[in-house]
């Protein structure tokens, strides 16, 4: 119970800091600007195709493409996934690096909190920030759903994918932040590792083989793609949850080592 209160204290403290500093507002503004822009262009494209379909009502090929999930939301989810690679390092770079640089970590670790309470508290706060930003984008689906028929289950699967992908990226970002006292370094490391996990599956294109399959399995992109198609596969769920746990665990080990290395 006391650890739950400790976790909650860390979450609330981190959220207060997020809302008190410009980083949330700046990253939020640009995230929504970019997501909104891509949603708008996707809808525009969908309109053009719909217009063509109306003119050539008998063309079954065009009619088959007229799926708002496939034409608007699938590409939107794909592009938000890429925006995340740039956005997440800004959200996470401060979390532990700043504590170490400013010296607040020394005080924090004398409080009767477990390392898990601190790490999961920081992770949860970053996740809440991300979910707030993501929640704004659900208005696209709501507005779109009012004017056309939408496959809500497929859109829901896409959002589940975004939540899990966001969680995975944030856990990796938190780990990068635990490695250094410098926020910029933490941000660069997080971005580089995220990019690596995004494109690692491309190796398989070079030829079949065990290594190619392993890299493909490790790829965030490959697992995320299924969600954007509206498919929820247990393997993808297990991968994302394991990814989050693995990097939170590495962060914990990194924090534990401070007592020895200092």
């Amino acid at each position: 119970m006391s650890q739950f209160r400790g976790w909650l204290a860390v979450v609330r403290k981190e959220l207060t800091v997020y809302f008190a500093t410009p980083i949330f507002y700046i990253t939020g503004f640009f995230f929504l600007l970019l997501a909104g822009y891509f949603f708008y262009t996707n809808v525009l494209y969908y309109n053009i195709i719909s217009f063509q379909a109306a003119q050539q009502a008998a063309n079954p090929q065009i009619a088959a493409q007229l799926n708002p999930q496939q034409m608007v939301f699938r590409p939107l989810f794909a592009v938000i996934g890429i925006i995340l690679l740039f956005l997440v390092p800004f959200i996470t770079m401060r979390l532990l690096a700043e504590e170490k640089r400013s010296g607040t970590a020394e005080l924090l670790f004398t409080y009767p909190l477990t390392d898990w309470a601190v790490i999961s508290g920081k992770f949860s706060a970053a996740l809440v920030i991300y979910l707030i930003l993501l929640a704004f984008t659900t208005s696209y689906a709501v507005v779109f759903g009012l004017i056309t028929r939408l496959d809500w289950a497929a859109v829901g699967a896409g959002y589940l994918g975004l939540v899990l992908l966001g969680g995975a990226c944030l856990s990796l970002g938190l780990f990068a932040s635990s490695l250094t006292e410098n926020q910029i370094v933490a941000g660069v490391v997080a971005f580089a590792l995220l990019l690596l996990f995004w494109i690692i599956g491309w190796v398989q294109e070079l030829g079949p083989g065990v290594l190619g399959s392993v890299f493909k399995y490790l790829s965030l992109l490959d697992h995320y793609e299924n969600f954007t198609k509206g498919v929820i596969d247990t393997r993808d769920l297990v991968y994302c949850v394991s990814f989050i746990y693995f990097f939170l665990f590495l962060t914990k080990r990194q924090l534990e080592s401070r007592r020895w290395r200092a």
Partner: protein
Amino acid sequence: METMVEVQDLTKYYGPHLAVSRLDFEVAAGEIVGFLGPNGAGKTTTLKILAGVLAPSAGTARINGYDCFTESLAARRSLGYMPENVAIYRDLTVAQFLQFAARAKGVESIEENREIDRVVAACGLEEVRHTLVAALSKGFRQRLGLSQALLNQPSLLILDEPTIGLDPSQIVEIRQLIKDLEGDHTVILSSHILPEVSQLCDRVIIINRGQIVASDRPENLSRQLGQGSRVHLTVDGPGGEVEAALQAVSGVNRVQSLGENNFLVEADRGRELRPELARLVVARDWELLELKSQEFTLEEVFLNLVTEEES
């Protein structure tokens, strides 16, 4: 008396550098103990090990019976720690930070506001309660550091240089605050300001190069470790003649003229000079205005010990 802190054979290496070497000491519940030593003596390292920030290379440190490393969480529940450089989240207000600290330290929800009010009042933080930490003066930041340590009434307080950077009136206030904690809390206090330690502490532990060189009550240290005994005299008489006469008294090692008829007479340790000096002044028909034994200050004891060690 119940033991609050127990340190045995404590050793800490930073790479090849030995910071603390086989330290042994105990602190009883309710005691205020001063930690003295020159820079780099190992004071802060020892305190950080007790606070669970660092792991020892060898030996054990226990708070309230709990090992500071293997049972760190239980040990930290009894602890209030004020680090040497108080770093606090700059983007929070004083109230927000204290609320976070209270929750992190396990203060019950219903007690939270009352507990925060208590430490705010005790440390004089009312006027800055809703000010951002970034905008606080050094003095208020120190007080905030002390106030968070006091939250949840910990049985042990570790204060690393609590009055550093404060103005004289703030120093007096903080010292009084620490003095008021005596009995209810055990306090380990590290300081460079020796009069502060002698005023506040029941016992002083002097460490140098990672080892304890003395541990006793401040007055005992002054008596036992001061080099010899000293008497301060104020005599109305011909200055040069008085000095020569004092120097001639058997057992006197040195006479120092302090100006305006004041003299400092030094003799071997344990030698009582006052009756003899009084008789001399009266016999010469000079006016004896003042005669008192002068103890060695903690500063002098400290310097003697550290210099002896180094030589």
